[in-house]
């Protein structure tokens, strides 16, 4: 680890160690073990089957698609797929856990070790180990703020399929943790196995944080439960690491505990309801049999995988000549990558990347619209880039054209035509302008010729201005040099 990653405490440097357990809701119509719907935002207890409410005598039957999604995710994380896995019961009492146990996978998960590549801002990459992925049921929801004496229980989420994706403790700062979460979300979205919508709770992270002196063994960790945004994950880590360092530097020791991130105060605090020592008494669920996967089925799923962000990024770098940074920006969302590819088809990859990343994304963000709603289509942006490439307009002028495209929804060629913005490449016309500029600035011409060469830029600017921005900049440069040389 680079020293820049250490946190300087009062008594010396500390290293933060972070591992994450991400709960990702499987994109499926029905629940993991029941036929109730999973859609977000239903009326309380309206998406609850007798199985989800743990009525006496109810039994679980597994949803094939959820299994398929877990396998697909495992393959996307380059992980080992376990052809034999087992569902266990994790026993504990809680108001929103109707069975008194959660069906999960303990010793034999469906997916084993894999990896995830972080794309660092400097263009480098860093590998984070994935320990495992398993399938489990979500619990219901307790609402504590509806009444002074009671908590309200809604079981709509009870039984929804989750993938718990566990990382190795391979992250060393809040930034990496944020990148991990974002990259994981990107992969899940590419695969279509989780919508990654953190606001609706489709993705939640339990963050394990510990600190140690560089080179020492891992310290005692605290688990921060159910953090639901990238920003909160980073804030929680920053706070928690500082808190632990302060305790250790004061000669105290860290209690292994579950903590909650208070988003309003930006602090973590011990969770009272989880204080009691747990003994989950895991054992194989006797209502279910071991899950055996057909290797041919797994192979079929593997073949159906889309191109994933890492491969796409590599292709963008190799085949389209993009910088690693630009490539990683473009692949972060599948929609952006698809947009870019549509623009870049048959055009200069680098030029297109610049336009998509700076101009297009900029305008899109300003508009507050989604890519689908936004007026600029790949065809329109491509049309504009074509006008630059064939010297009809300059890159500089193209930005004005783009602004007008966003404003009016018209395509580039129409705007250029209507506004007479075609670039002037006729050397005679440009020479005429240059002559006028030189005549009007005879003193500057003299200074230039006496050696003040940095005035060259001034002449370029004046010439462009006089041409209404339409003069071809390359031609202006060339002709100016010649003329000024006398």
């Amino acid at each position, binding site marked *: 680890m680079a020293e820049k990653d250490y946190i300087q405490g009062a008594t010396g440097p500390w290293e933060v160690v972070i591992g994450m357990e991400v709960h990702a809701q499987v994109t499926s119509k029905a629940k993991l073990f029941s036929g109730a719907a999973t859609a977000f935002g239903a009326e309380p207890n309206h998406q609850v089957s007798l199985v989800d409410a743990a009525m006496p005598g109810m039994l679980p039957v597994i949803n094939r698609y959820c299994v398929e999604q877990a396998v697909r995710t495992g393959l996307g994380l380059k992980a080992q797929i376990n052809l034999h896995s087992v569902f266990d019961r994790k026993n504990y009492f809680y108001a929103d856990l109707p069975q008194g146990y959660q069906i999960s996978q303990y010793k034999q998960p469906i997916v084993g070790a894999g990896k995830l590549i972080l794309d660092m801002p400097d263009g480098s990459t860093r590998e984070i180990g994935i320990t495992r992925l398993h399938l489990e049921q979500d619990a219901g929801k307790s609402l504590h703020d509806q009444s002074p004496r009671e908590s309200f229980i809604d079981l709509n989420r009870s039984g929804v399929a989750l993938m718990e994706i566990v990382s190795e403790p391979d992250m060393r700062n809040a930034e990496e943790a944020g990148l991990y979460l974002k990259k994981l979300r990107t992969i899940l979205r590419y695969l279509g196995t989780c919508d990654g919508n953190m606001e609706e709770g489709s993705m939640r992270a339990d963050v394990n944080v510990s600190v140690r002196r560089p080179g020492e063994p891992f310290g005692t960790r605290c688990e921060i439960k159910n953090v639901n945004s990238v920003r909160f994950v980073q804030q929680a880590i920053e706070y928690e690491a500082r808190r632990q360092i302060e305790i250790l530097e004061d000669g105290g020791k860290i209690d292994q505990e579950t903590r909650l991130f208070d988003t309003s105060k930006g602090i973590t605090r011990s969770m009272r309801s989880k204080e009691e020592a747990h003994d989950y008494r*895991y054992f194989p669920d006797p209502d279910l049999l071991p899950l055996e996967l057909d290797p041919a089925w797994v192979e079929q799923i593997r073949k159906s995988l889309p191109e994933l962000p890492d491969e796409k990024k590599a292709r963008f770098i190799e085949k389209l000549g993009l910088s690693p940074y630009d490539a990683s920006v473009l692949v972060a969302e599948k929609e952006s990558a698809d947009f870019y590819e549509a623009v870049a088809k048959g055009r200069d990859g680098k030029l297109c990347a610049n336009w998509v990343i700076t101009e297009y994304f900029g305008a899109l963000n300003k508009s507050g619209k989604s890519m689908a709603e936004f007026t600029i289509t790949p065809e329109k942006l491509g049309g504009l880039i074509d006008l630059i490439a064939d010297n009809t307009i300059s890159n500089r002028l193209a930005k004005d054209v783009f602004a007008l495209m966003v404003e009016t929804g018209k395509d580039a060629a129409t705007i250029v035509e209507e506004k007479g913005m075609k670039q002037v490449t006729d050397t005679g016309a440009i020479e005429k302008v240059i002559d006028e500029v030189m005549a009007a600035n005879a003193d500057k011409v003299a200074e230039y010729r006496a050696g003040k060469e940095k005035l060259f830029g001034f002449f370029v600017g004046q010439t462009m201005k006089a041409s209404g921005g339409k003069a071809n900049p390359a031609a202006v440069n060339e002709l100016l040099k010649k003329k000024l040389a006398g």
Partner: protein
Amino acid sequence: MSIDPATLTIASALEGLAKKEFTSVELTEACIEAMQAAKPLNAMITETPDKAREMAKASDARRAKGEAGLLDGIPLAIKDLFCTEGVLTTAASHILDGFHPTYESTATANLWKAGAVMLGKLNLDEFAMGSSNETSYYGPVINPWRGKNGEKLVPGGSSGGSAAAVAAGFALGVTGTDTGGSIRQPAALCGITGIKPTYGRVSRWGIVAFASSLDQAGPMTRTVRDSALMLQAMAGFDPKDSTSVDLPVPDYLANLEGGVKGLRIGIPREYRMDGMDREIEALWEQGKAWLKEAGAEIVDIHLPHTHYALPAYYIVAPAEASSNLARYDGVRYGLRVPGKDLIEMYENTRGEGFGREVQRRIMIGTYVLSAGYYDAYYTKAQKVRTLIKKDFEQAFQRVDAILTPTAPNAAFPLGAKTDDPVTMYLNDVFTVPVNLAGLPGLSVPAGLNGDGLPLGLQLIGKPFDEAMLLRVGRTLEKAANFTARPQAWWRQ
């Protein structure tokens, strides 16, 4: 005409209905009368006479249209462990106070589909945990058979109400469930027939779970033929139960009278235990002789791990039960005893709602699954279970069925075995290995002991070979010619 249901079997009643000797309404009315007269036995938790009359009427209408099903018009009673739509379902526990399911168990739905009529819900040991029906929140069931001096005896358990209802003659057939012997042992103690099918044969959906990997529902009747008829209706693949087996249900009546000529019947030497009741041993010998006489070959077999079945069972079953019973928490149904916070509400509800035996088993189950003890107890027990299953697999390479006694003793007086839980557990010593191996087991009444109390013989079969079991059972039934009936003392 006046009908005495105690003299009927399902088969004979179906004949009577077919020949229009009586209607289902008449038959049902007679059963209701007999059921209400049998209140001293405390066999019922809930009687549903109105529902029964309604169903009987509908049955008569179906029969008139020529649309009668396999069991059309036959009054049955249901162990109160099966969820029945709109009808109080208690598992004989205080904790399910007032619970009216909005659904019907697959097994009972199959019976109603076959045209059967429901008389009501039968008493049982709380959550089917017990071997004497003394753990019921609704009080013990009294065996229709009485002791030599008129003392009240237990009917066995957990399907004690079920066995008593058939023995008393007010239901032609009943459902039972069997986790460690709960169909076969009470059948033996009450002088009736009962079959625990192969694990996976009858759907568990909608039956209050005790120990999921062992529970299996089955019929209890007066005759082997009646059990075959009822099982025919109850069994079948159910996509709602992941452990239900997707195999066709054979015609159990087709070869019922096929006899045992040329069959090989195994006698496991390990079942001959030290201090075994002489009369039980003699009956077992008699059973061997009957089958031999009927043309079977008797084969000495070896089931070396038999001795460890009971201890393994008393780890696996409570472990599963401790988890299965976690859902009774006072939140969504049943009893709630208030508390100052959520945890206290749980503790009060469960402390008050579960009886002693259930609490004991929850405690044992919780302990054997807890950190540090799991491998020593639970994993060990599941390994022993593998060995027990292997014992049977090896034996069944040589034999078609196995003959053993059903229970180590006849019916015993109330309270005789309640002081020490383990003494009670020993009642299941011959039946438990069958559940651990998932096999089918049949108990057939085979004789009376010196005190005039019924004794049963157990037949154990290969997986899904219920047809063979019933066939051998029928041979045994014919040979034993068990016609004794308890006196209807409860009517006085």
